[in-house]
């Protein structure tokens, strides 16, 4: 699914989080929103997922206006910064949550849910943790469970908010490859937010550099490195 962001702006009370920004995300791309904190990248991600609504502008999914769609109607697989796993549910129940929340007519039966959850656990290479609780998992495992939970709803796109933020350096490297593999396998249009330029440059097909609520540059990692468009981008990627 390709996503078009058309002059999206967002203000909270009196403060401006996003100036009008526009961005076209081709179908199947892996896109990084890169910028320091307060640059508006998370706000933009949450607007895509339907967790915030823009003050003005439009979002289009496959050319169709999706601005008014509710968070449930968006069907965006969302991975939260600290994963937001349901702490009172097992890993199995966490992953099955989205399937069980479907309206009765579209809800898979028990056997089908078990089959799908098992398949997702295999995909994230943690086949044996179905019965555990989130508190019994390591940070890396939690992140992968959150990813599996987001994938379970057969999302139209994958949105990740600082997916590697809470992990140590070694696990971070491993999981980067994991995300790349999952992206390539599912072919989902994927947008992730990061403040780590290495992460963005290494992982993404397209990097969107943001600062102070505006987009500074959009480009392939190589192009951004070779030709930074503004002083800010030059500073940020050399840091």
């Amino acid at each position: 699914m390709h996503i078009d962001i058309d002059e999206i702006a967002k203000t909270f009370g009196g403060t401006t989080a996003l100036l009008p920004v526009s961005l076209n995300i081709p179908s199947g791309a892996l896109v990084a929103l890169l910028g320091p904190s307060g640059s508006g990248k998370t706000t933009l991600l949450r607007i895509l997922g339907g967790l915030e609504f823009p003050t003005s502008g439009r979002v289009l999914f496959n050319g169709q206006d999706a601005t008014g769609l509710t968070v449930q109607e968006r069907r965006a697989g969302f991975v939260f910064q600290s994963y937001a796993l349901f702490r009172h549910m097992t890993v199995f129940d966490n992953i099955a949550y989205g399937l069980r929340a479907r309206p009765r007519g579209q809800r898979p039966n028990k056997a089908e849910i078990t089959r799908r959850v098992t398949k997702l656990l295999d995909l994230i290479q943690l086949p044996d943790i179905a019965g555990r609780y989130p508190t019994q998992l390591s940070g890396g495992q939690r992140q992968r469970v959150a990813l599996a939970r987001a994938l379970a709803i057969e999302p139209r796109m994958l949105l990740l908010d600082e997916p590697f933020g809470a992990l140590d350096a070694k696990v971070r490297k491993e999981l980067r490859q994991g995300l790349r593999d999952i992206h390539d396998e599912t072919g989902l249009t994927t947008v992730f937010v990061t403040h780590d330029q290495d992460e963005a440059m290494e992982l993404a097909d397209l990097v969107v550099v943001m600062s102070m609520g505006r987009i500074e540059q959009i480009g392939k990692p190589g192009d951004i490195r070779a030709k930074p468009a503004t002083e800010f981008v030059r500073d940020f990627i050399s840091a």
Partner: protein
Amino acid sequence: MSDTTLPTFRAATEEAPFLRIALIGIAVAGLAVLVFAPLAVVFGEALREGWLAAVESLGHRDARSAIWLTLTITAIAVPLNAAFGIAAAWFITKFDFRGKAFLITLIDLPFSVSPVVAGLCIVLLFGANSAIGGWMVAQGWPIVFAIPGIVLATVFVTFPFVARELIPVMIEQGRAEEEAALTLGASGWRTFRTVTLPNIRWALLYGTLLCTARAMGEFGAVAVVSGKIRGQTATMPITIEMLYNEYLSVAAFSMAALLTALALVTLLLKTLLELRHADQLAAIRRH
């Protein structure tokens, strides 16, 4: 600790033995004087003339009516306040709006206002001489000196318990899990039922139990609005006071013992639930 050849070092948070003994002693003495002694006196006085006299006094028509009234009021007031408390806590923790701090202060108001004053306010607002009260009396539904007034007074006095327990828990948990449920396609109600409620259930239980204990024991506000009509609007605490003033000591203390026992049962219930779900509690708190 077992190695005696080394000089004895104390952990930084550990105190000298004499200080420890002194502190424990003060705590035990305080508990004995303030908690155990009154409890013992209440039950002792009730049973002074034997079990039979105590039970007989509780079987009296007015006593039965008081017990029934108190249980009814509690059964109405506690669910109301649980619902109000959840709604208030939800509103305060999940949304940002102006005047939030003011609203939190307002929720605490019943703690700071004297129950007698609260009772007087209800009489002024809903008494037979007020517009609303007069109309209600004309319809045959008096509020003051009747059960609705007692419910109102009890709800007011016990209002903060549930909300106060829930607000810190819900603030600490944030909104992320609920947002996650929404992105996974759950409706607002389903999110509340399957994510919010399970996460707050222990706080909700504590709040409800405290609220129950307080609702059964409320005296001041109820004394003003009930009119203390024997057999009709006299709750257990009111009846205890009336019996005591009439020098019916065994009857007064039997009723008091029963009220205390009801409170103790709620505490016992809480402890049992905690024991039964100890592993679950630990899993939530380790987070």
